[in-house]
């Protein structure tokens, strides 16, 4: 019986994040529009877009290969699995131990690898520019993220997210310089990885500075729908990750029963809403950066992450 409940909770979490992801994207878009004094689309617009794309036929470029058709499913699967392994409303779920934080970062790397390849597949200059820049950004963002993981694991003694979240919930963590540095590094990485302003602009389509949109330029129909959904899931993943590590309040433990789960879900929704709001606020208050400034921006994240880890090597109390 317990096994079935565990399964149900785990499956429920997977479905929950899948259903919430477009809503989060819509929420950020609406907020951004309203901050600019526009009315903005409905909150449900991303769902309508996805459904419409799913029903449309796919137009494949003549030079597209099998990789181009397989990649959307692979990217979607990798990101969904990665997102499902991050504790959202409850920690210690049945399969949370399948992959620790390093493995989650690497799973996102798998998705990025195939997305960049798909960008090169048709053989157009826009696809190439996107892939090349995406890999440049990732080559700085991924080490920064791993340094953040180092900091956390030095503090919590584990790279397992459930253990980290429980450690952070314990009262004796307190305010630490290293954690602040790690949070800052994670925020910068999250912005870069989700193709957000100032690194990339999710709303543009005809600008030479675009990265993510350039890679997916040749996609249409259901393939595009999957990639859009995967992008939304990735945004959700990062906000959940920040919530799970730096604000684990209200998170239920596995097998805590329905009331605790409800509190957990409510807290999780609150965190998502707040995260989306802060993201929209940040994005409207800053301008897009030149591509060759991005490396300095991400270099800051890398150095912050390294500094956080080094501080902990010096003293466990920092």
């Amino acid at each position, binding site marked *: 019986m317990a096994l079935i409940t565990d399964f149900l909770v785990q499956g429920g979490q997977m479905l929950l994040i899948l259903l919430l992801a477009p809503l989060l994207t819509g929420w950020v878009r609406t907020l951004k529009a309203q901050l600019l004094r526009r009315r903005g689309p409905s909150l449900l617009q991303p769902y309508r877009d996805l459904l419409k794309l*799913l029903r449309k*036929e*796919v*137009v*494949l*470029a*003549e*030079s597209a290969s*099998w*990789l181009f058709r397989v990649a959307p*499913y692979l990217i*979607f*699967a990798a990101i*969904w*699995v990665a997102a*499902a392994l991050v504790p959202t409303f409850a920690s210690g779920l049945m399969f949370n*131990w*399948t*992959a620790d934080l*390093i*493995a989650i970062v*690497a*799973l996102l*790397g*798998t998705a*990025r690898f195939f997305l960049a*390849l798909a960008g090169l597949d048709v*053989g*157009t*200059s826009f*696809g*190439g*520019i996107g*892939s*090349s820049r995406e*890999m*440049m950004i990732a*080559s*700085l963002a*991924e*080490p920064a993220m791993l*340094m953040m993981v*180092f900091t956390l*694991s030095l503090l919590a003694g*584990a*790279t*397992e997210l459930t253990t980290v979240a429980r450690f952070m919930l314990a009262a004796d963590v307190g305010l630490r310089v290293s954690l602040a540095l790690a949070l800052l590094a994670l925020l910068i990485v999250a912005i870069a990885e989700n193709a957000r302003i100032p690194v990339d602009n999710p709303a543009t389509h*005809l600008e030479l500075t675009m990265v993510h949109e350039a890679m997916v*330029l*040749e996609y249409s*129909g*259901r393939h595009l729908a999957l990639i859009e959904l995967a992008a939304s899931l990735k945004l959700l993943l990062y906000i959940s990750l920040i919530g799970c590590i730096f604000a684990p309040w209200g998170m239920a433990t596995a097998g805590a029963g329905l009331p605790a789960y409800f509190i957990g879900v409510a807290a999780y929704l609150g965190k998502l809403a707040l995260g989306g709001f802060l993201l929209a606020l940040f994005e409207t208050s800053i301008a897009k950066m030149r*591509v*060759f400034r991005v490396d300095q921006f991400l270099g800051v994240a*890398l150095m912050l*992450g*390294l500094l956080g*880890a*080094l501080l902990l*090597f010096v003293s466990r109390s920092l």
Partner: protein
Amino acid sequence: MPLPLLLSLSMALLTVGIYAIATARHASCSRRVYSVALAISGVALILVLTHLLTASAPATLTLPLSLPWLGAHFRLDALSAFFLIVVNLGGAVASLFALGYGQHERAPERVLPFFPAFLAGMNLVLLADDAFTFLFAWEFMSLTSWALVMAHHQESANARAGYLYLVMACFGTLTLLLAFGMMAGPNGGYDFAAIRAGEMTPGLAAVVLILALLGAGSKAGLVPLHVWLPLAHPAAPSHVSALMSGVMTKVAVYGFIRIVFDLLGEPMAWWWGGLVLALGGITAVLGVLYALMQHDLKRLLAYHTVENIGIIFIGLGLALAFQANHMYASAALALTAALFHILNHSLFKSLLFLGTGAVLTATGERDMERLGGLIHPMPWTALAFLMGAAAISALPPLNGFVSEWLTFQAILLTPELPQWLLKFLAPAVGALLALSAALAAACFVKAFGITFLGRPRSPAATQAQETDRYSLVAMFTLAALCLLAGILPGLVVDSLAPVVGLLNGGAQLATQHTQPWLTLAPIVDAKSAYNGLLVLLFMALSGTAAALLIHRFASSASRRGPAWDCGFPDASPATQYTAGSFAQPIRRVFGSIVFQARERVTMPPPGDGRPARLEVQLRDPVWDYGYAPITMAVIAASTRANHLQYLTIRRYLSLVFGALVVLLLGMALWR
């Protein structure tokens, strides 16, 4: 009884080599040589696998060969059994590949005799149990591989690569000779058992460590001794490149492990680990940065070997640091990570070189700027190469990720180390490791994307055809092993346990295959765990479910049309991104510091019909600051010494007299 059998198999390989000298010009010789080599490597593989998996006791054998007062000592223990697996697996797969690939060889008489001899040489290095046999086999391996590098010696680049290789190999053997001499001591106990039993002073042991690092490191490709490797490995035929890069570098690592971990015993100072760790970190990042700047597919892969050797040495350095502080549990993790990466690298690097060989056969090109779109004519080769590329980029659920994950977990244990320098070094090396993993992914997006995806950039790429069946079977064997080692890492870690125990005073990791769901949990599963099998299963389930649901309930219609490209479709394949343009952002970010990369655009004035030119200038810091001064000094000294050839007889006589006086004076002062 596996040891005498293994030795006779090596002898059989040598016999095959001699047979090939006689019949190499015969059309059927190639097939015969490679199939016998395949059979012998296969039998040897089964023998050593059973030896390692049954955790048998070490076997020794002394033959009345070599030096009359010494005899040839041979020994098969867990360490040599593990490396024999790597060698014979690589040898078997390369032979299988060559059954098809060897048919296209232009100069079979220069390849066939040396290929089995090269395999035999590597086997003998691993079995040797005294310094003389070891060095003899080591030199034999170097010379046979040099002959294979020189197989196509008419190309001037190959001749230069061969020369450089020979110089570096001589240097490496010289340092190893000195290292063994120091270990053997004044009484000349050259067999390994005597060396193990002997006592060494810490100072002498440190010198041996540095000599071993120079000798084995120059063969393995440790920065700054790597310069020959990216020239020599690509010069050989592709299946030999696979062996040199995937396997021979591992034999070099074996030499280092045997000397430092086994013969020297416990590390005597903490800085040993720090030195190896720092060298490993620098090698990893520099190797991948070099690789990113390459357009030649084989040279790119060779530079990646340098990177992966760096990762292996990071693991070994951590193990030394832990052992010096008597933290054997942590050392076991670091050693497991290093050994696992040795196995992994031999699998995916051989696979990638074989894939390149298939591309080379199909198109005659290894310059990426002239390839492209090969996924259409060569879908299977593309799939195998893609798996190798994903594995080397450390992407889950393949095997490269597991060993890098284990290395990261070992780095996370370093705060327990008491030495401050190591405390600072370890996270910095962690950052370098993370950087090299991310850059490797970028590099393989480039390697696969430019070669196999897009549109063909030359007529050769348009007319390519899928490679033969032998080659495909060889590549897919390796690809399947990459996947298996990635999803069942616990089984690999368990079979590495005897090796780790041997090198680590008996301490090894906890048994992994009893973990629930075959999870890999090297320390405690609440701290860190990874389950490649479940990750693969989840990905396969969610991907398939999405595909089925969408095709069933939404739409499965698709249509072909011209590329969209934002409304500016370009007819010419020359407008695609090239390898050079793909690497440009990374060149700008990292290359401007490391390689002093400079770009210059020459734009003709308006009305001038000449094309604009973009020139990129890269400088190799290792060559400029390390080798160039040495070469200059050697040339200057030899020009000076050249005068000695044109002296009169009187001056020669006075020179001889002067030298005699100096020597006698020296003798007198020495006394």
